[in-house]
């Protein structure tokens, strides 16, 4: 997002001075692509709605759903233990690293690697490192945060053997579009599958249009395609079909097509 518009930095910096750090080009380059708007709002401790409003003022359109319920990460704070109860605390203050304009990510990851069982890592920072928390949670670490004084955030990580989440699985889900997966789940077994990747143009379009003519009521078509079929889109619109897509890689996009008067 910041790549698209330099103004973004100014706008979000005006919300909260924490975001002024984004003006540092090195930090911006390494941090910005790792976070979403919601994450950024949380890092800076501001309401996501204010954030979105500010972005809309400078010409961004917000697409997708605004999370209504509090992020599950917040729940971690409830079961947090007080610092006093922790044995074997390894403390790491990354504020000087950030001030010098470097990305503390690698330093933290090194510290995590040498962390022994039963030890807890304490990261002292001026904001909540959401991307790091997500990354480590996916690797099975338990985490919680504390804000002992204004402008100082302590984040704790501890190995949790019982909550192991497969890294690979989590990443695919994250990459995918929420809408797409929801719809896919909605149709369940009531879905027909075709793969048009090995067909020459315009066969994919012909096959898809043929298939949707014979779909049962409430049934959807799931297509493995090479790309988003630009010339098919207007035709689907005319025939009252909706299409959702998810990009798997640069040579593989999956589509769900269904009649749009379903509800």
């Amino acid at each position: 997002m910041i790549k698209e518009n330099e103004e973004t930095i100014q706008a979000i910096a005006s919300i909260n001075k924490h975001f002024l750090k984004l003006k540092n080009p090195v930090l911006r380059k390494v941090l910005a692509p790792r976070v979403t708007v919601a994450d950024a709002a949380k890092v800076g401790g501001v309401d996501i709605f204010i954030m979105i409003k500010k972005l809309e003022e400078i010409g961004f359109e917000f697409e997708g759903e605004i999370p209504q319920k509090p992020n599950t990460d917040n729940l971690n704070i409830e079961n947090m233990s007080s610092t006093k109860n922790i044995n074997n605390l390894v403390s790491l203050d990354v504020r000087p690293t950030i001030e010098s304009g470097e990305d503390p990510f690698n330093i933290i990851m090194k510290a995590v690697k040498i962390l022994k069982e039963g030890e807890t890592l304490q990261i002292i920072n001026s904001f909540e490192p959401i991307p790091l928390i997500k990354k480590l949670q996916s690797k099975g670490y338990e985490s919680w945060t504390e804000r002992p004084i204004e402008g100082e955030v302590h984040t704790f990580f501890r190995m949790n053997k019982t909550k192991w989440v497969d890294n690979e699985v989590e990443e695919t889900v994250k990459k995918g579009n929420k809408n797409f997966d929801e719809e896919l789940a909605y149709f369940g077994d009531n879905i027909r599958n075709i793969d048009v990747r090995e067909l020459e143009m315009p066969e994919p379009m012909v096959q898809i249009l043929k298939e949707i003519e014979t779909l049962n009521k409430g049934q959807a078509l799931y297509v493995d395609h090479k790309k988003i079929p630009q010339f098919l889109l207007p035709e689907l619109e005319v025939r009252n079909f909706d299409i959702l897509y998810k990009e798997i890689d640069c040579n593989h996009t999956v589509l769900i097509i269904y009649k749009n008067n379903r509800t």
Partner: protein
Amino acid sequence: MSVLNSNNAPDASVVKPHFVFGSIALLVLSAMIILADSNLLEAYFNTKILAITHMAVLGWATMIVFGALYQLIPVVFETSLYSEKLAKLTFWIFGFSILFLTYAFWVGSFSGLLIYASLLTFSALFLFVINVILSYRNSKKKNISSKFIITAIIWLAATEFVGTLIALNFKYIFLTETHLFYLKIHATIGLIGWFLLLIIGVGSTLIPMFLVSHQLNEKKLKIAYILINVGLLGLSLNWFLVNYTVIAPLFWLAIAVGVLFFFSFVFEAYNKRIRKKLDIGMKHTLISMLSVFLPIVISLIVMMGFGMEEKFLIRVTTLYGFTVIFGFITTLILGQTYKTLPFVIWLDKYKGLVGKTKTPMPRELYSENIAKGQFYLYLLFIVCMILGFIFNNIVMIRIGSYTLLIVAILYNINVFKIVFHTVKIIKNEE
């Protein structure tokens, strides 16, 4: 983010006229080559060759490229064309300016008509450049192919700028060097900056798509992009600013290696293809890709001279232009017409019927036999002309010229068959 409801495809009425104009231009072009006759073996800057070159690169190649690009922009940029009305207006101005410009060259009216003709051409191309740049601004997908296309378009503007300067200089002399010096720059950035980069941009999308090949190494394209642009920029800056003949070969080398990287990408797509059988459109395309080695070798001879006699080198310079325009560009366009145009017309006529009833396929819109005949005759034309230029043989040139006329007629028959196709519904036999 994932709901796609926009209609990006342009109306067929935007694309069609470019193909009609282009194919008629090919016919006119072949007649001009027959009329030019022995002029073809004289110096490459004579009025007839200049007229033929401009008819070929603008009336034929650029015209069809414009039409094809309007159709391809949704595929490569994933956005719609900025303005279809502007595209139609551009077509009329451009079409008229090409006829005007070619006529001005043919009759040799350098200080009279040529200035107005070139200014008009400049404005038409400028409108096109604006339309594509504004479309690109809306594009969400900024991949390597679209970078090639947009860079090619900037080089097109530069080519046209230098061309107009040369034309103005015939009347209001203000340039310091001779016309031939600027002509060299004009031709180089036009052929390499505009056509070559554009062909790489479009080709890197279309060739894997038509061959149905997956998992290609896009790094090759990125390297090609950098090498060709650095080479071309170096070459033009060197000419304009210092003109050291010693460093020119370095830039030549950068461009040549860049082209080889693209060739290697195409070769990879060819090897990894799922569709084993090549249709007539793809046969043309592969011949075009192989022919890329000819101008690389010939341009080296033109640049270095190797102590050959002046008269021979002048013909070799014409041969260089010939291999780029006819060997590489025209072969590709002849073939890609059979991949693009039938699809455009098919989409326009059958989109409402597809799936509901059995419809013909795009390839059934033209005669396969005519296309095959056209292909082999075209190869004959290329061989005859190359021999004619090398051995200064007018008979070979004449055989080649008449062969091209037949090729142009066959091509026109097929193009008109496609454009004026009437809807046929195949009855279900089951």
